[in-house]
């Protein structure tokens, strides 16, 4: 079956209210309830000040610890804050870029990208210190020393043109997904479409993970000429639809939709999407 994120089922099956989610997040007895509440507030975009405040407090949680020493609640709180659009949390998320837990750093970088505030650029650049030589795997872990994908993608989305010299060497990183993230960022920072061609070539890779990753990158940067190739690559329809949504919406913004109506290009992408439903 196709992949999709299923909401975790609340014990007892009762739907949460905002008040209940906030109470669950503030209490410290049941870590499961707190973890779920943080996810829930992000999922339903509860952006009221009390929710933002409780989530920022959760970024410093010490109670919920994973077997690997990580901080599950902090990870979820950072992700949720990325969805709420309140830029006042940027300094708190920048702090998280120094957290011992790799996944907290990754969630924070992704949230900072989503919030679109350029403040974290220097802190994000600091995570690229040492360049490709330092960007090695952590022994016994499925990840590199830093969340390079998220960092490169954030620098690209935040318009960090000053970081181009540090980003460029990552095109040659040994991990293909990191190369993709660098290509994606460099296209965003330079507008040079040869970087997109590299991503387009990845859609022909025999490895499904690589095809997925390149497809989502092309969607995230909204590269219109990739629409046909995304629709034709061998991957789940659910992911293709999300990538094509990214391509379409980027084009819609540039073409002044809804006031100007639909362009022929937009119609063509919609036809591709219809076939994937």
């Amino acid at each position, binding site marked *: *079956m*196709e992949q*999709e994120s*299923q909401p975790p089922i609340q014990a007892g099956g009762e739907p949460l209210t905002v008040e209940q989610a906030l109470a669950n997040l503030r209490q410290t007895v049941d870590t499961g309830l707190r973890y779920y509440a943080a996810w829930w507030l992000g999922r339903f975009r509860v952006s009221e000040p009390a929710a933002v405040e409780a989530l920022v407090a959760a970024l410093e949680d010490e109670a919920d610890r994973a077997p690997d020493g990580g901080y599950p609640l902090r990870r979820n709180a950072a992700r949720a804050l990325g969805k709420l659009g309140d830029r006042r949390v940027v300094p708190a998320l920048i702090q998280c870029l120094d957290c011992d837990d790799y996944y907290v750093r990754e969630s924070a970088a992704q949230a900072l990208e989503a919030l679109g505030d350029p403040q974290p650029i220097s802190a994000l650049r600091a995570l690229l210190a040492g360049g490709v030589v330092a960007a090695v795997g952590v022994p016994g872990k499925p990840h590199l020393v830093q969340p390079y994908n998220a960092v490169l993608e954030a620098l690209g989305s935040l318009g960090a043109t000053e970081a181009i010299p540090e980003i460029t060497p990552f095109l040659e990183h040994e991990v293909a997904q990191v190369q993709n993230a660098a290509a994606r960022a460099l296209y965003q920072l330079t507008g040079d479409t040869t970087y997109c061609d590299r991503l387009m070539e990845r859609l022909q890779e025999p490895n499904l993970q690589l095809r997925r990753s390149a497809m989502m990158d092309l969607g995230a940067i909204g590269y219109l000429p990739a629409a046909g190739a995304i629709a034709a690559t061998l991957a*789940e*329809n*659910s992911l293709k*639809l*999300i990538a094509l*949504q990214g391509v*379409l*919406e980027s084009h*819609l*913004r540039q073409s002044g*939709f*809804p006031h100007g*109506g*639909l362009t022929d290009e*937009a*119609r063509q992408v*919609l036809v591709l*999407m*219809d076939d994937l*439903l």
Partner: protein
Amino acid sequence: MGATVAELIQAVEAADSKGAMALAVHQLAATQDAAAIPTLITVLGYNNPGAAVAAVEGLASLGSVAVPALLEQIDGYNYGARAWAIRALALIGDPRALPVLLETAKGDFALSVRRAAARGLGTIDWTRLTPDQAAASQAEVLEVLTQATTDPEWVVRYAAIAALQTLAKGLVKADPTPILNALQQVFQQDETPAVQARARLALDTLAAPR
């Protein structure tokens, strides 16, 4: 020349890897022989997406003859198989699938299944029903699709709009105004630009001279 259907069925049963299974299912599906139906349906429950895609294509190309067996499968307990069966039914467009497509579009918890069911409601072959039956079913489909235009997931709303567009063209006795109003509302108010754009396309298409 090629193997018999029985041999191809055996090849599916004997496949010892996911890739070999997908290939064997693809070859079986290509026969377009009704004798392959039970095996193709069984494959839907194997948690092998490559094989399932091939099986769905095979079942869809067989069309109505596969519908009774698929409807029985829907009652089973295997959740993954159920999702694939919905997809096959959505592609076939046989009105006997209406009750299960309506129920699924209304309330399945997986968004990709709601999406497939909503799309299927737009591809029902209405000529297989009497005009009175079609009119009654279309009223029900219209209600469920209109409801689906407010689904929390954008892709389900998108599928519902695509389906409303084809429903509007196939209406037997009803006035398309409620559909046009629903599309207009989505175009003006939906929070997702891709969904608004699909509503715009539907409105443009329906307004064009036929």
